[in-house]
């Protein structure tokens, strides 16, 4: 077992905090972007215009059947090439894994948020939309003012649960050498040869944070269930 030296954590704390900052940032941005893009995808999937519905369904099903890790690497290698062809630059721009991850997670999570929002929209009685149309509101007004607020509220606990999954999934970017929380821990672990201490610490931090968050989500679910 060797001698454990948990002081290494104290010394590395600023660096780890920096990693955690990136993890939280990426989580928040991907959540916000994913919900917006996912909601649009959900509306597309529910559209009566068949080609649009099919395209959205195809996108969602593709994203949901391949590993996140593969998607992360896809975008890491493809994003520069895509940007080059879009901007007509001479060489692929160097955007780096840290930034490409934002695009990856927004686009990937959108597929999951799409399914959540779709279920949320379908949970709203048809009469609600009909009532909106009867008042003379147009499609976007009905969605924006009547259906989506209710769908969002009903799905809030599920969205939060998915956010916790997202928070954990962000750790996969460490495999692209990005210094997220796990990435920071891996680097310290290797530099100081303190693998056991660092990984245990990371596990405990994640557990405490995610446990607190998921308990909060459960309480919220109970509150909403009572109100309804």
């Amino acid at each position: 077992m060797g001698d454990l030296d948990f002081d290494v954590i104290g010394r590395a704390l600023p660096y780890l905090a920096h990693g955690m900052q990136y993890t939280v940032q990426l989580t928040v941005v991907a959540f916000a972007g994913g919900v917006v893009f996912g909601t649009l995808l959900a509306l597309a999937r529910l559209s009566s215009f068949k080609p649009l519905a099919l395209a959205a369904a195809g996108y969602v099903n593709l994203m949901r059947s391949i590993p996140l890790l593969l998607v992360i690497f896809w975008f890491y290698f493809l994003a520069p090439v895509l940007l080059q062809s879009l901007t007509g630059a001479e060489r692929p721009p160097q955007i780096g894994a840290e930034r490409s991850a934002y695009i990856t997670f927004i686009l990937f999570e959108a597929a999951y948020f799409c399914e959540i929002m779709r279920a949320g929209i379908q949970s709203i009685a048809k009469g609600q939309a009909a009532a909106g149309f009867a008042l003379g509101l147009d499609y976007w007004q009905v969605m924006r003012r009547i259906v989506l607020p209710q769908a969002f509220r009903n799905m809030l606990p599920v969205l939060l649960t998915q956010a916790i999954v997202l928070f954990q999934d962000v750790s996969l970017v460490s495999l692209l050498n990005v210094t997220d929380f796990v990435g920071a821990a891996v680097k310290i672990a290797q530099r100081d040869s303190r693998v056991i201490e660092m990984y245990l610490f990371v596990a405990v931090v994640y557990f405490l944070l995610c446990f607190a968050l998921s308990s909060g989500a459960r309480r919220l679910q109970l509150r909403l269930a009572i109100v309804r």
Partner: protein
Amino acid sequence: MNFDIFFQQVPDGDGAWWQMLASGLQWTLLVALFAWIMAFALGSLVGVARTTEKRWLIRAGNAYVELFRNIPLIVQFFLWYFVVPDVIPAVKAWVITLDPTRHQFFTAVVCLGFFTSARIAEQVRSGIQSLARGQRNAGYAIGLTQTQTYRYVLLPMAYRIIIPPLTSELMNLIKNTAVAYSIGLTELFFRTREMGEMTFRYFEAFAAATVIYVLIALAANRVMAWIERRVAVPGMIAGAH
């Protein structure tokens, strides 16, 4: 896109690139298969424990599920691969007798098995709790013991009800095998990356992996749908109970 690359020989390896991917796929499927068996058995036990009337069993089951659900999978891989052998001498003694590939394979199975079992436990619990409370009473009323009531009354219906969420858990498991790349298991994603790095044909390599993963997902989906049809109960609308 140029398909020739798949038939080129791997530098200082035996076989062409398509064979490398195929061997990766083999590891992916093997890990998924064994982890699924482990997860299904453990998940069923823990899920049942959480529906009993024994308070300590419910607590222990809840703790189990929370433990595996609130730590990122990649961190769990590191814990099983680096920390567990270091902390438990008996595991270390066994691990050093294994060749690295074996060690990676066992780690991947155990890690994904526990990780997935927590999710299956959650499904089994909610499946049993979605059954009418009277079903349990009806089992007891005709003289079945608690074990018999689970075996003949509650579980057969609960499993039928949770086939759709189990299907997504199976697909999640298959996708999660890619994280075994982090401990160096030469599964499909590992081979894909390797091919990209050694040939600089990232696009072809990733496209091939994408197609393969989509096909596995489709196949898993079909198999579960077939099972669902096979065990469907006449006169019952799916999910209506």
